[in-house]
């Protein structure tokens, strides 16, 4: 299965406009209920994401069958809420936001050099773009060029107030020149580092390789490697800039928590070693947050790129391991 991802927001422009208009007048919780009762059950019936997320809970988080099935439903409901929240922001609604590690961001904005913020498709990263803002350093957010015009228009409107520029990933690679220029000009570049988008080059890491129960019992189940894009790590180390991991997790119906964590690497080490150290630090922080918020994992594709045969084998190993520990 292909683990490249060409992500775009669901729905057409008319739907997006309608949603924003609606959210100006109603409480987001009304839409949460609508999504949970009507939208998610249909999605679960029609969409292959059901199996992908179920296997993620079974094989990566280590839940049993029933719990995995329930958490698959919860995961889709939360994803629906995150999409509603995104449009609620476009409609002018505010959320309670707590930041852990804000001083790390502030410290880097005071320095002359540019820096990189790496995110992932967990929680609701877009909130960070409207919250972590600097008057002195422009933030350049790398976005998917194929995103719907309505989303791009609304993002531009929101970002215009927050000293943020969007750089779209282009097939002619012009985005690379923009990223490089932004960093050498001392600006901030923000991008996700969990999906392979643009360059097919990747770096493999043992990520959520196996549940703790599996680790304890079976050496063979010590996870298959997951592929992460090489680009974000190559960009940061090419300019030897500082890097922050920034992830935004939904903490309550109206609240989000932003986690800002510095990712360290030895800038005097050989280039390949720098890339390895930086990607190690990123994956480790991602795993920490996914273990804390397992239901907010929104990579609805075969992230580990396993064959069906491997996947079945892992499911059996996981089941045996659970029986032994029960």
């Amino acid at each position, binding site marked *: 299965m292909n683990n490249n991802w060409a992500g775009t927001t669901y729905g057409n422009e008319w739907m997006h406009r309608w949603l924003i208009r609606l959210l100006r007048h109603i409480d987001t919780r009304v839409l949460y209920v609508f999504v949970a009762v009507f939208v998610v059950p249909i999605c679960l019936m029609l969409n292959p994401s059901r199996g992908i997320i179920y296997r993620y809970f079974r094989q990566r988080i280590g839940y049993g069958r029933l719990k995995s099935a329930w958490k698959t439903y919860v995961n889709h409901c939360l994803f629906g809420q995150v999409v509603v929240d995104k449009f609620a922001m476009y409609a002018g609604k505010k959320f309670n936001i707590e930041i852990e590690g804000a001083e790390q961001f502030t410290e880097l904005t005071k320095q002359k050099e540019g820096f990189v913020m790496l995110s992932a498709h967990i929680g609701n990263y877009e909130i960070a773009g409207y919250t972590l803002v600097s008057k002195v350093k422009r933030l350049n957010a790398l976005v998917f060029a194929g995103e719907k015009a309505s989303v791009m228009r609304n993002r531009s409107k929101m970002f215009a107030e927050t000293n943020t520029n969007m750089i779209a990933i282009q097939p002619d690679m012009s985005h690379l*020149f923009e990223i490089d220029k932004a960093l050498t000009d001392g600006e901030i570049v923000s991008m996700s580092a969990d999906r392979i988008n643009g360059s097919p080059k990747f770096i493999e890491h043992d990520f959520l390789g196996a549940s703790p129960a599996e680790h304890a019992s079976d050496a063979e189940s010590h996870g298959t490697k997951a592929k992460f894009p090489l680009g974000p790590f190559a960009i940061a180390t090419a300019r030897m800039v500082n890097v922050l991991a920034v992830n935004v997790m939904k903490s309550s119906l109206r609240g989000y928590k932003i986690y800002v964590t510095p990712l360290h690497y030895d800038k005097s080490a050989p280039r390949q070693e720098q890339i390895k150290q930086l990607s190690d630090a990123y994956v480790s922080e991602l795993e920490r947050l996914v273990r804390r918020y397992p239901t907010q994992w929104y990579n609805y594709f075969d992230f580990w790129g396993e064959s069906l045969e491997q996947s079945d084998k892992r499911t059996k190993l996981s089941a045996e391991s659970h029986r032994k520990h029960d």
Partner: protein
Amino acid sequence: MEQLIKDLKLQIKEALNLEELSLEDFDADAPLFGDEGIGLDSIDVLEIIVLLEKEYGIRLANPKEGKAIFKSVRTIAEYVQANRKK
């Protein structure tokens, strides 16, 4: 020019870790990108941008120039010769 092409081939080979590619097989006129040529991609472009800045003091900031400059080693060499600061 021929010496500059040779230097660039060596520098690109080292920067991109192209161990399997011999300098003799590294055609100066072959397209750097796509299936027909060397098969480099966007991350490799970034490495070459940094290389040109470090070795020749050239800072490429105009995205419109990029496509023409990075067509082949020869086009890079022509650009370097005309714009080098080192």
